[in-house]
């Protein structure tokens, strides 16, 4: 109909909203506030039919503006949040939770704790059941704050014990925090999800009180339960725990296996390779080679001297023993087309030599073995090294020259 262009309430508010959006994106907080002032009357027409109704819009936009606006105080912010809590009962817990986050960002731990406790005691008919997830989160975060209190108490206690004091009150307080925290943390990590911080804290508690079995179980669940999303950190935590517990290399290695699969470029790959290299089992050593090669595929590792030294050591070892050259061949096969340009260009040779002699040494060793003594990288670095009369470079040159036939077998 010809009245499509008619300006009505709905269109006017839609236009208003897009002005707010633009202002927010450009961080023009004054302007955003100006238009929000005009938008708020939408609340009087909020019949919650749209996907995101006016009350939610106002909550989210208002939060952004008040958080960033230079003239807005924490008091204004809190006052606003309280209003928002009354606006939509279906969102009550969500608003509480986000308010708590803001308080934490602002360093107001105590207020955050109070807010969480208050929210925890909220009941509203069937809404309580519907907002069950949010409630769990609230309890979890309260547990986290309890942990934080516990941690503080613990430090005080340690200080005092150093000074020779013993403080019963603090100790009791500490234990009480522990109990509160433990309950909530344990609950939340049962639900499939990513709970890194909660897991860490919980394990921390358990270790302190000596419940290593529980800690191990928790970490195993977190890492290996298929219902939980694949999470590299889970494996890292498990590994670190096992290391602290002084577990055998075998279990340490098995903890890192999946990590290698998920994140081949993880920094723990060096530890992983180091353990694997030393293993008596052939399969493990083979894996070790695979691991270190895979790590060095990533640009972030290009200048990691430690990684190169791991590779160099293993490759050298293989060459000297003249056994399992096929391992190197296998690994090199998929890399020989691009590693030369990626790692062993003449430019890199110069740069590595200038910036980090150890790095260039290790790399030169690898290059010499993989590409032969005539490769650019090796030639340049060894030449420079010999020129500088550095002993190890001379040794390097000799070594590569001596084993050149082997190298050729690899390249070939």
């Amino acid at each position, binding site marked *: 109909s010809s009245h499509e262009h008619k300006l*009505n309430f709905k269109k*006017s508010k839609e236009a208003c909203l897009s002005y707010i959006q633009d202002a927010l994106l450009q961080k023009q907080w004054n302007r955003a506030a*100006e238009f929000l002032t005009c938008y708020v009357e939408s609340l*009087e027409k909020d*019949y919650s039919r749209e996907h995101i109704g006016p009350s939610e819009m106002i909550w989210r936009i208002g939060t952004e503006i008040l958080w960033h606006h230079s003239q*807005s105080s924490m008091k204004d912010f809190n006052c606003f949040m309280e209003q928002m809590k009354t606006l939509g009962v279906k969102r009550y817990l969500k608003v509480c939770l986000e308010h708590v986050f803001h308080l934490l960002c602002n360093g107001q731990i105590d207020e955050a704790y109070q807010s969480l406790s208050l929210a925890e005691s909220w009941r509203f008919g069937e809404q309580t059941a519907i907002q069950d997830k949010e409630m769990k989160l609230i309890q979890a975060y309260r547990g986290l704050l309890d942990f934080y209190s516990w941690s503080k108490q613990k430090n005080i206690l340690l200080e005092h014990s150093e000074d020779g004091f013993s403080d019963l009150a603090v100790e009791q307080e500490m234990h009480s925090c522990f109990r509160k925290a433990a309950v909530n943390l344990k609950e939340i990590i049962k639900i499939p999800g990513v709970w890194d911080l909660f897991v860490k804290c919980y394990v921390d508690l358990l270790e302190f009180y000596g419940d290593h079995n529980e800690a191990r179980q928790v970490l195993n669940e977190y890492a290996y339960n298929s219902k939980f999303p694949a999470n590299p950190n889970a494996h890292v935590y498990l590994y670190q725990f096992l290391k602290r517990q002084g577990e055998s290399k075998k279990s340490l290695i098995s903890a890192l296996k999946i990590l290698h699969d998920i994140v081949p470029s993880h920094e723990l790959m060096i530890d992983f390779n180091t353990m694997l290299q030393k293993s008596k089992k052939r399969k493990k050593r083979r894996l070790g080679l695979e691991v270190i090669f895979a790590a060095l595929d990533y640009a972030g590792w290009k200048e990691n001297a430690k990684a190169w030294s791991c590779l160099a050591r293993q490759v050298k070892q293989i060459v000297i023993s003249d056994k399992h050259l096929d391992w190197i061949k296998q690994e090199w096969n998929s890399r020989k087309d691009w590693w030369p340009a990626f790692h062993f260009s003449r430019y890199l040779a110069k740069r590595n030599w200038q910036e980090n002699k150890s790095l260039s040494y290790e790399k030169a060793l690898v290059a010499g073995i993989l590409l032969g003594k005539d490769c650019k990288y090796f030639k340049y670095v060894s030449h420079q090294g010999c020129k500088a009369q550095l002993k190890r470079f001379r040794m390097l040159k000799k070594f590569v020259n001596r084993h050149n036939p082997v190298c050729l077998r690899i390249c070939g």
Partner: protein
Amino acid sequence: RDFNERCAQCSEVNWGLTDGGRFYCRSCHNVTERTREVVNTDFITNSRVQTISKGLKKKEKNDGGCEWYICEGFQLVLKKQAEALEALGVCPEMKDEILCNFWRCYLQKSKQAYCKRPAGETVKALSVCESSTDVDSDPERPSLLRLLSLSESEGDLQTDCSFASSVSKVSESTSVYSGSVDGSLYLMKNQKEKLRMTMPMTLSFCYMALLWLREPITLSELLRFVVEGHIPYLNVFQHFPEKMKLCGLDLKIFCVESWPVYEEVFNKMHELAAFLDLPRFPDITESCFLHPDMLCMKYLMEANLPDELHNWTCRVVKKIGIGEVDFLTLTPGNKSTRKVKYDVLAAAVIVVVLKLLFLLDDHYEWLLSEFAEERNKNNTEVCIFYSGGPHFEFKKWYEVVKHSLDVEQKKLDEERAKCLWRCENPLFYSVKNKSKVLKRRQMVVNLQNQFGKLSGSVPHAEKPNPSSFQLSWSEEDTDGSCFHGHSLKGILQEKCGLLTAMNPDYWLCTVKLCNEKLCGHLAHYREVEFPQSYHFVLGLFSFLLRIQPSYIHDEVCMIEHKLFNKKLCKKLKYNTVLRK
């Protein structure tokens, strides 16, 4: 009240009104034959209708309210609007005579008052009801939901249904449905029978009165004043007296959620004029503001175009006869004449003149502009002064006007987005949701205060002073941004003693006109199908008149077809470019 005769039976002067509209003596209950409309002379006051009910249970108005009819509400609205117009400079006769006569006539014709059996009589049976437990069980009483869905929905009031359904098990009387006596009946009325009064129609009344008096306000200006807040429209019910309580269905009638559209108000006005059997309106002659010659002059000034163009608009007007009294004057009921939109017509004439002189095909006008620029460069200042202003350069004009237009358009767009629709005292649908409504209102006010403080130094802009001109250009501006005094001599030539355009060509907007009665338009405007310059010019007037470019385009087509009538009658083969 004003009926001062003594009662025939008891000689007392103590009258009341039956619900049949007849006077009865309160002392002795003698009912007269005199009906309300004969006696009631005071008109524009808030008339309280006192009634008795014949033994029916009557809901006690303990909230201090009175019973009022919808038309009384509209009467108040019109009064407020007329007062506002008077404040803008319209002569007082508009309010005191013309408008109220029209209104009286309307009430009579639509049988709402001033007639033998006011429609109020039948209303009584519906509105004052016994308490019933279930609304839907009574087949005669329309269900609330059906009433709401019957009439056109005005924006979100449709959603009030959700409240309605929550209070559907109402056992109270219709005062819940509407504060007015006949609110529900009003919405139910068959529209074909009588012109049902609506808020946009109040503006039709105003415009009709203004036209009758030939006041210098065009319809587009009137509507602009409404949007700018100089004429009450939005939330005008705030001015109703305390005792007239609005709720329920009244909201649907009096709460507007959109600004009125030109076409709507215009068409309704003509319907109204016919409905009221009005005679031919006072003549629109050459000296009238609404005459195309006058309006063209105004718009030329506002569009920053050379005054010389006025000669051309007058020529076009004369040639196609749209300056004739009979063409311009409104004769209601005459279906053969096309209804004249004075403002749109004048704007369209200017567009046609620009096309005649500049072609506006995205090439020729720029070419002419270059020539003009050359000539201006070569002439010295003295030359320009003596020869009547510099050559008009289309390019310069375009740049200057576009810049201002963009600025104003941006302001307008922001104003539209910042439009506040609600008022301080919100209406509520029924008593049940009153507290919720008030709570919400309070929260809105709080939030407005909170964020208003953060808006920075700019407070919510005051209403701009009402002005007839939206763009103004001054010849005192030294930057040469005023083109009124510029000359067209570079693009004109003399032929047989007559000045004609150098441009030999013209392109028609459309070769064939549509049947307006079938599809509502004479032509269908799509931006991509026309030159950018044409679109720009349409856009300029579209902004000034606050209407869609397509309306101006329609008028342009109409004018062109009149202008080139003869040539069109000859066979034209696929060629829309004409040689003049």
